[in-house]
């Protein structure tokens, strides 16, 4: 689990998840929406 003290890094699974998210989106996504998607995926 990435904590606040560690440097946050995207791994290949995260990038694949984001790419699929954007490919399925009908409109541009904001940064806040991507952040929320990353958080909700692991919640």
């Amino acid at each position, binding site marked *: *689990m*990435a*904590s*606040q003290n560690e440097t*946050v*890094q*995207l*791994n*290949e*699974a*995260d*990038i*694949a*998840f*984001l*790419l699929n998210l*954007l*490919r399925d*989106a*009908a*409109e*541009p*996504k*904001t*940064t*806040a929406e*991507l*952040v929320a998607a*990353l*958080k909700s*995926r*692991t*919640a």
Partner: protein
Amino acid sequence: MMTDSGEMVLAFNGTKKVKENAAAAFNVLRARGAFMSDTATIKVPVADLAAFLSITEKALNDALAENSDVFAVQTNDDGVAYVLTTRVGRVPGGVDPQDTHSLMQRLMTPEPKPAPRPRPVREVVRTNEGWATYIGDTIIPGSLEDEEDDFAFAEPADEEIVAVQPEAEAAVADMVAPEPVVEETSPEPEVAELIATPAPVEDEEEDLVQLIDAAPAEPAVVPPVDVRPEIPVFEEITRTSRPTRSLGEPTDFTDVPEDAIAAMLEQQFSHHSHIAYFGGRWMTTDRAHRLSRGNIRDIRQYIQEQEQPLTDETLVEDVLRVRKSNPEYANVVFGLNYWLHRERDFEFVGTRGQRFWSVSDLPPLGTTLRKPNDIGSDYRFLTDGVNANEVEHRSVTEVDHVVTFYEWNLGLLPYDAEMQKLFPAPMLPDQRSAVFTFEIPQSYTTYLVELRYPTPTRGGFFLGLDDFYFDSLVPGAMISINATESDGHYKVEYIATNEQSDRLLEMDEKRPRYHFRPTTYACGVDDAWLLNEDRFPGFAGQKQLSDRERRKIATVVEVTFERVGIDDGNGGLLASFEDLLAAINVERPVSEELLRSELEMHSDITGDDANGYTYATGK
């Protein structure tokens, strides 16, 4: 012109008397409908008709009943019987509706769709399936010439038909497959016989005969020859939709702050080759709307025609003709921003909420009295001791400000520490300026204002408020700048007061000297910053300092003492800090801290805020 004789001869049924009555009744009815159309119903009560003809109703009814194809009798709810007919001697309503037409129908009914023209049969190039499935080593080099004819005559369609009809397979096989035949296929014996004739031969031919005779005999029985080529069977290649390599476990971002994730995305994900990122928005590059060269040329021309920066939404609607109701509107707006950002001739001068675009040869916003670089140099003190990374942009919603003479004259606002908290940071790392809209609700006007972001050698400032200042304010006016939901739009308000008249300081542009001019204004002012003749009469007729003199803050302070100071009786000039601050901001922008620092450092200036400052001129 056609006329109707009024007489029409019909053949009626019945006895002679009945015929006479029917003919008389028809003539009366036809005369009544003399101006009616041929198919319109002529309707007359039976009793009235009988009375008119001076016959009994029974006689009339007999005549009507006998000629039912000409007359019809209809009784209404009141029991009154009517005889009905038409001018052409037919019972009304018997007209075939298919024979009728109306003007409305002719106009409203579209013509049937014409049958499509027969399309020419397109010649389809067919490829032998044996060739279509070529892979690697299937064709042996050198064997291509031998097999070419075989491939050309192969007809796999027949094979398929046989395959789907198993009961007929045997019969077809009997017909198609030739019996094993015994044939003397080997030409060698024949050749041997021919060569073995008594004809004279040369030594080489004899050797050849010997070689041929010595060769092993070919088998006499050969298998049936299949005229079709062998179609190679290939292994089926199954492709999986997902890579078999594991991508690993997804990172758990539950406890990571959102700001850190956002920063990580912009650092690590925005440069991905499949990602289009602009202004905090993300898409895949293949879905971002692309601009043609013609689109980019039209956008450039439109901005040049309007002579001012324009927002992305304006460009999308006015140039690309995509309306907000279009489902692709958001994609087109994003695509415009993303692709224009990659164009060298365009410059982004907007914010995240209000994205303005400019072109390189657009006339600058704001004053032409002084170059923006010189103004930036005047505001250089604003960058002293300020760490741009520590500023919390958009952390306040309102900033009050008093307009100095220098700002009023050039239509400026300083981008000082308070303003930096009110306005957003540059959206792009290399962004030099941003355009904002300043709405003045009290005058129902909106101005385009350009913010020049600070550089290491120049301070930041706003340009483009000249008209607003000249129309509504005077030097010393108090204004309030309020943020709105959009980080590119702000509301500016001033204190409306009753009209006041005063002789205020101005710069005479014809001969660059200061003078006092009678002015009427209706805005609230801070008296400490009001420059009128009663307070600073020494400004009258003074020349504006040169750029060289203005750069030295000490020189400007000394000149200001000479303009506003009073003789202290000892050869010095005495002035209050308040007067000095207001007067020195006529020539150049000076903050309170900068002036206080200069007063302390200057060797010829003594005093304090309570007693005033004295500048010993050395007389």
